[in-house]
């Protein structure tokens, strides 16, 4: 799995909340999927207009991104762009369009990143 070294990732994440980089560094060394979740949902949470009531990674899998959290498709695309950069992956448009819930996103990224 070709993921960026932490120092290169630190440049990409410059200015984002430091806990995202910490989670990335932890995932880089331990490959714990829970750390991956903290990276992914930390990025999306940061891009949201208003902070969510609780960390996104702790929400129910059935929580809908658009309807329940008002996260628009461009925000998801922007987070996905960063995730693609960090993990050197490519997420296809048709797969992105199928992602509707926290659980969909978690599952898809865990599968793609750890392949």
């Amino acid at each position: 799995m070709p993921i960026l070294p932490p120092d290169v990732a630190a440049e990409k994440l410059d200015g984002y909340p430091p806990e995202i980089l910490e989670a990335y560094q932890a995932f880089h060394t331990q490959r714990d999927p829970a750390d991956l979740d903290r990276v992914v949902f930390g990025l999306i949470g940061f891009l949201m207009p208003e902070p969510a009531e609780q960390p996104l990674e702790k929400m129910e899998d059935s929580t809908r991104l658009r309807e329940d959290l008002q996260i628009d498709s461009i925000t998801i695309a922007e987070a996905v762009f960063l995730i693609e950069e960090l993990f050197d992956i490519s997420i296809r448009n048709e797969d992105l369009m199928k992602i509707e819930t926290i659980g969909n996103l978690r599952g898809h990224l865990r599968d793609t990143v750890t392949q």
Partner: protein
Amino acid sequence: MAAEVAITGIGWVTSIGCDGETVRQSLLQGRSGIRSVDWYPDCPVKVAGTIPEFEVSSPNWIKWKFPSTFKIRRDALRSLAPHGVYAICSVLQALQDADLEEEALSTPDTGLFCASAGSPFMIHHYLKEMDRTGGKRGQPMGIVSSICGTLNFNLGAYFKIKGANLGMVSACASSSHALGYAMEEIRSGRQRRMVVVGSEEVNPEGVVPFAAMRALSLSHSTEASRPFDQNRDGFVGSGGAVCLIVESVDVAKQRGAEIKALLSGWGQASDGHNVAISHEQGDGLGRAMENALKDARIGVGQVGYINAHATSTLVGDRSEAIAIGRVFADNPQVPVSSTKALTGHTLSMSGALEAGICCMALREGLAFPQAHLQSVDSACEHLNLPTTASRLSAPYVLSNSSGFGGSNVTLILRRPE
């Protein structure tokens, strides 16, 4: 009868100040906004009209800093170019100046006209990224944060504009065109209020290419911008943002707004001559001034001050001087100055900036002096170019703008009763 048009609010993000009072003091004291820059070690361009209090030199919005008095929603920053930050701040300030809430802009009878060249800086950044990834991926906000139109896209969404929303692209005449057509929207009754914004970035991508046209001053002096001076050697690039809130006089009076100035007329005409060089005799600009005087139904004797377009280029300043001399043959003593000596040339935003300065001239009852003038070009000697402020002796002021393609616009403003 066509509606009368008023300016009721102005927002300033400029090299000579980021609020009305600082701009006023800079103009009165001859304080220049031109500063040293060191963009590339061997680049001959060493001065620009940079914007104090803002740090937007990164393509990454997370790193931008701007005065804490301006509250911009964080999610809105993601789709902005750097000059979009200036622009939103200028609108917020203009709203305050006009005593309006943000919500007042989100009505079907309120429109938005913007002027900007887009962001060559962001386009450069995104295209480098495209090369790096081989087109495999890119920033989703790349297009809306960079191309020409980025201002009207973003400001339209930010302020929830429901009336007209578009951008003007006539280079350095753009925001004067925006003001002229905003007047038409209000005169016709299609809109009752218009937000007009001109904005540009001050970075190497936006400024240095003009050096290839031999249009920029290569002086290292902060007094490098010296319109009408015989030793001028080109313009000094600048930017920022200026917003003007334009309303029908009836709407302004109904809500008890303070009217800063009345927009009495405007005119446009083109040179039909050259893509980048002004007509030697100022043909188009002269006709733009005549058309504006006709539109305002006034004679040249009623004009008390001309804020010239003169950017400090050899050909452009002479062309304008000849045009003014021809049109104002019966009022040769009308004071003329180009405030670009202090602000630098703000390209597409210059018309909005200088209309704002004309409002200030009317309010102060002053014609602003020509700064940095040591020895007048012999081809401009027929102009009255005062080097100290003089009292306005007539109720109207005139502002000229000229852009690539020989596009010329003249605006005429009057002090309110």
